[in-house]
């Protein structure tokens, strides 16, 4: 595989984590515009862990997931009392607060005569674990997709379980779920924390792929894209968000047919799909049809 293909596939894998994070919240009935904040928390946490304290990437990724889950839990405590548009606005505000915190964060250590660590708007350079450990681009691609495959398998297991049924019921009708004995608030808080951890894992892997992160990486564009991927791809299966990422990054961007007009095409595609297929290409009806056909 050439550098370009490896780069495109790595980007598809990395952005899939945040798309899956948004998808998880959507099927639980909440639309978050703030998952990019937890992606950023993961990126900064893992970057600090490896670049400043020499912690290996697997451990750093675990720490990032913990930090992402904790941040999402804390954000969820007040925001999950809200519904619909109000929840969406509150999550966007929380993500912007996190981004501004990253801008104010100056935390550097002198390592080998060079300051290393987050330096506010100047960004955070030198997240070199991958290079210091001789991981080649193809190896990192395998790592990203291996982690993504593990997450997808977990999703598939959950979707086939009682937990998955509860999750979908919660998204469809929270009152019914409450009457059936589900503690709706507690359950949603748990879902928000898991979604935060998932976004943070993506952020940790992104930081080490890029070696440089800055607060602007985690602004609203990333959040809107992650939601759009879930909505384009479909909410019927975990493969929906991946299809959304594939359509945008793989087809629209990868082919470079539309060049600078891609964002206009992408926005139009989202608008058309929201009108004609509000639950995306792979919605529940298509997934059930596919299951009947191939089961």
């Amino acid at each position, binding site marked *: 595989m050439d*550098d*370009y293909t490896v*780069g*495109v596939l790595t*980007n598809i894998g*990395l*952005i899939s984590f945040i798309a899956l994070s948004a998808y998880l919240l959507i099927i639980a009935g909440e639309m978050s515009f703030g998952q990019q904040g937890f992606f950023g928390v993961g990126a900064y946490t893992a970057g600090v862990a490896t670049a400043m304290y020499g912690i290996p990437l697997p451990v750093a990724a675990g720490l990032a997931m913990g930090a992402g889950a904790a941040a999402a839990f804390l954000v969820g405590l007040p925001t999950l009392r809200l519904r619909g548009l109000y929840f969406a606005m509150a999550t966007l505000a929380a993500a912007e607060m996190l981004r501004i915190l990253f801008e104010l964060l100056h935390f550097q250590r002198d*390592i*080998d*005569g*060079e300051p290393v660590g987050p330096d*506010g*708007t*100047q*960004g955070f*350079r030198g997240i*070199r674990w991958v*290079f*210091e450990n*001789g991981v080649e681009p193809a190896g990192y691609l395998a790592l990203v997709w291996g982690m993504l495959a593990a997450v997808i398998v977990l999703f598939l297991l959950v979707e086939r379980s009682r937990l998955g049924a509860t999750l979908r019921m919660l998204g469809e009708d929270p009152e019914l779920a409450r009457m059936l004995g589900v503690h709706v608030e507690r359950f949603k808080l748990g879902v928000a924390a898991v979604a935060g951890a998932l976004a943070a894992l993506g952020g940790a892997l*992104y930081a080490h792929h*890029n*070696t*440089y992160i*800055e607060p*602007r*990486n985690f*602004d609203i*564009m*990333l959040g809107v*894209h992650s939601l759009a991927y879930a909505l384009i791809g479909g909410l019927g299966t975990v493969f929906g968000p991946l299809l959304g990422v594939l359509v*945008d*990054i793989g087809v629209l*961007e*990868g082919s*470079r047919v539309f*060049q*600078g007009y*891609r964002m206009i095409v992408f926005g139009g595609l989202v608008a058309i799909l929201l009108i004609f297929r509000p639950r995306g290409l792979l919605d529940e009806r298509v997934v059930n049809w596919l299951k009947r056909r191939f089961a």
Partner: protein
Amino acid sequence: MAKAAFCLVLALLSFPAFAQRLQGELDCKPTKTDFIYDCKVKLSRNGQPLSGAQVTVGADMPSMPMAHNVKPVKAKAGKAPGEYEAMLDLEMLGEWAVKLRLAGPVKDQLILLYEFDEKGARPVRRGDKPPRK
């Protein structure tokens, strides 16, 4: 004493972070084709020009991470020591994080933040601090 100093110097030289402290500079001029820039990359290590590296030049937009896949190009060695040349095909004007991926004797990645416009490219300055190369 001399033996200790020699050991210290040897240890410092063998430490990869010291051996690979990189700096880079970019000089890009627009071509006749929109969004294609003719770029010269100057690389140095510990203040000395870094020649003989295999340099691949890519780019990503900080405001839209992972959403752009600029095709990485292999840079050719330039005329001056530590200089490399590459044609960068961007998708739009604006701020780009130019990624210099180094292989060969030095394995590393350097990110340079530049604002690309119709006149060329200039380093991004944020706040009151000079940009770090």
